[in-house]
């Protein structure tokens, strides 16, 4: 081997050794066990400082299993909760780092809960701080708590699964319940800053009852809508008559005008919001029976076509036309009326359509009173403008309050479920 080849060989060895030491990231490595993962973060108004920050951190697994695929214990799996008063979110995280032995990491945070009080004061500065941060994910959810966010986070104690998985799953149930929305941080942030649509966030709360004897429907919204009894969506989070092992509730929406919360929608209005905004997927919905008083018909309602929305700006007095196209399968007919027949089927379709139409118009007028275009009708107006100056001159967010609404609901019952007709059970007193 010549001297030159030997030098080359030596140089290669040095380079490989250097690469092995410098490129393995051993210098600033962080072990998973050295980090404390925040799963839920709550922001309330502070008593001694600007905010009260609640951090719900993942409990370390008790040896062995810790991770995916292992058998999950059936006991309540809460979070390690710490509450701190601080001037900003990052200051709070920093302060918490001084007494939590592991380095706090928010890259696995699933929810950020703002109390109603904070939301009414405005969330813009906090949302910007979160968006700017590299650790926070844009897919985490923004929730508005009816009551202190601290209480809500302390109440997240799922029994069947770990809190992270529970939160991720429960926040996706709106796709088949219709009682919430996709209030991921990215959606909320984009809507909050939009000039043509305003923001909403899912409402959450802590269960209001301890025993069935405490149940009270005076907090239900059914009377305002003229329903004989509360239907499943006539509640806001925290007022659902329920007890049991799950202490938290998520139902309804917080409505925003810019960065400030201006109102609430219950579960039923939330379904109508999803329909008007074109985001409804499916839900089981209960309707009063059109032929028999105090009886109900339950339909499995699905979106059939995209919602058609047309807006005529009309010199600052917008006329908004919405056509909601749905289809449904029959889930239950309490009265035993044969709505499976052609004539009765059409009757039911017409009744449900007019029921939903009245509901949607009531809901839209509610948003008008809140001066908040949460359905994004402004986008239709924006599409009619030639340039940005023309769009700005239309001053949509202010003009929305002058809108008039015309809603049309087209509902077709496609399938009767697994029964083709309803036969009433005979009784001893004779006959049907």
């Amino acid at each position, binding site marked *: 081997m010549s001297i030159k080849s030997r030098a080359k060989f030596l140089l290669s060895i040095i380079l490989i050794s250097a690469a092995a030491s410098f490129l393995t990231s051993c210098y*600033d490595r962080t072990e998973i066990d050295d980090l404390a993962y925040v799963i839920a973060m709550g922001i309330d108004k502070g008593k001694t400082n600007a905010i009260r920050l609640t951090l719900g951190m993942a409990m370390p697994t008790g040896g062995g299993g810790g991770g995916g695929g292992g058998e999950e214990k059936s006991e309540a799996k809460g979070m390690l909760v710490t509450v701190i008063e601080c001037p900003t979110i990052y200051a709070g995280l920093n302060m918490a780092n001084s007494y939590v032995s592991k380095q706090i990491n928010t890259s696995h945070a699933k929810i950020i809960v703002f109390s109603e009080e904070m939301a009414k004061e405005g969330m813009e500065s906090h949302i910007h701080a979160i968006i700017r941060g*590299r650790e926070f*994910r*844009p*897919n985490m959810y923004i929730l508005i708590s009816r009551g202190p966010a601290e209480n809500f986070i302390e109440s997240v104690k799922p029994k069947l699964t770990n809190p992270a*998985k529970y939160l*991720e799953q429960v926040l996706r149930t709106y796709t088949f319940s219709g009682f919430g929305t996709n209030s991921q941080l*990215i959606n909320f*942030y*984009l809507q909050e*800053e*939009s*000039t*043509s649509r305003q923001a909403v966030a899912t409402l959450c709360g802590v269960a209001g009852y301890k025993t069935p004897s405490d149940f009270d429907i005076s907090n239900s919204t059914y009377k305002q809508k003229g329903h004989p009894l509360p239907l499943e969506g006539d509640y806001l989070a925290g007022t659902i008559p329920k007890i049991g092992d799950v202490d938290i509730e998520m139902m309804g929406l917080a409505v925003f005008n810019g960065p400030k919360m201006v109102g609430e929608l219950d579960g039923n209005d939330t379904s109508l919001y999803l329909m008007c905004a074109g985001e409804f997927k499916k839900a089981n919905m209960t309707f009063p029976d059109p032929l028999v008083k105090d009886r109900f018909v339950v339909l499995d309602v699905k979106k059939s076509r995209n919602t058609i929305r047309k807006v005529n700006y009309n010199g600052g007095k917008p006329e908004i036309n919405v056509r909601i196209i749905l289809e449904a399968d029959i889930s239950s007919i309490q009265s035993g009326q044969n709505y499976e027949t052609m004539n009765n089927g059409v009757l039911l379709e017409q009744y449900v359509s007019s029921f939903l139409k009245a509901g949607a118009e009531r809901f839209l007028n509610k948003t008008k009173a809140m001066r908040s275009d949460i359905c*994004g009708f402004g*986008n*239709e107006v*924006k*599409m009619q*403008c*030639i*340039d*940005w*100056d*023309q*769009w700005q001159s239309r001053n949509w967010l202010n003009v929305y309050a002058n809108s008039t609404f015309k809603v049309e609901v087209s509902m077709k019952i496609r399938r009767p479920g697994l029964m083709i007709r309803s036969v009433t059970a005979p009784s001893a007193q004779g006959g049907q």
Partner: protein
Amino acid sequence: MDKGNIKFGRWEAVCLLVAMISAKSILNYPRFQVDFSGPAAWLSVVFVTLLALGIISVIFKLYKPFQGKDPIDLGEIAAGPAGKIIAGSVIFLFVGVFTVTALRDYSEQMKVLALNTSPITYIMLFFTAGMITGLLTGIEPIVRFQAILMPVLIISYIIFIVLLTPYFKSDNLFPFLGLGLKKIIPVELPRISDYTEIIFLFLMYPFLKKHSIFKSAGYISLGISFFFLLSVTLSYQLIVQYPTSTEWYIPVYQMGRLINYGRFFQRIESAFVTTWTLTGLIYTCTGFYFMVSSFAKTFGIKDKKPMVAAFAVITFSLALVPKSLLQNSNLKGNFLYAWGWTVTFGLTILLLVIARIRTRKHKDRKQSA
């Protein structure tokens, strides 16, 4: 110089140019476009590309008699040795600014994206090592590497865009004319500098030899780069409405963070960090190679190797001059991508016109003699 012995084909030239022109799409290009044109940013990309296409067609026509000549050779033909030195120095400085700002930019982006606890000099060191290696091994390995890498980058880019489609909202593209033609056109005309990296095609001409390859490589790379620049701008606009779209710092990375399919398929932006690193490496390597080559050619230095260490230290040090990442970005936005056209298109056309006049006069004189 390698130019006497090395020759490469159309595909290699296209890959190099596409990598150089489209690299900006993964940095802050979409945001710059939105800043200037609002919701009509994508239309501006089309407008600027058509403008660039027109100018490049003119350059190709003027270039026809000067087969295998780069702008430094053109300077010599146009104004003798003095012309060579002037043209060479301008190109050296221009490519140098590109390389220096790119070195800082890519290193800073890496710090933001992945290596946030590492010192900036430590990250820059790796890019500098790549630049030195690239220069020592020559242009051939650089273009061959790009030719291998380009299909991988194109496929991963297309997958990336497809995964983002659930977030697209067409109403974000309205009002159709964005900030208005009166505001957009005066600002967008100099944005032809978005294609300023086409100068590397002119510098590559001695390696391509044939005019037909030179011309087709130019058009194909312009087309592919247009696809990249348009699709990234459109995707950004379809996801983030104006004026929120003026807020995001690294749009492509931030869009990547949105990709989320169920509980399993998420956080895939980490996979793209490799793409970012490789793109940065290619960009700085090519820039550094042509920077040193231009200097060597201008001053008649035959062996580039002794200059490598000196230029590496100078580039490394100059890259640290901007006080912050924002200052570096402003330098790029307000200088390179605002005035870059004067060198890439202005200087080249000027040299070509003078060189043609001189050649014709020379021919006429010969004929009359």
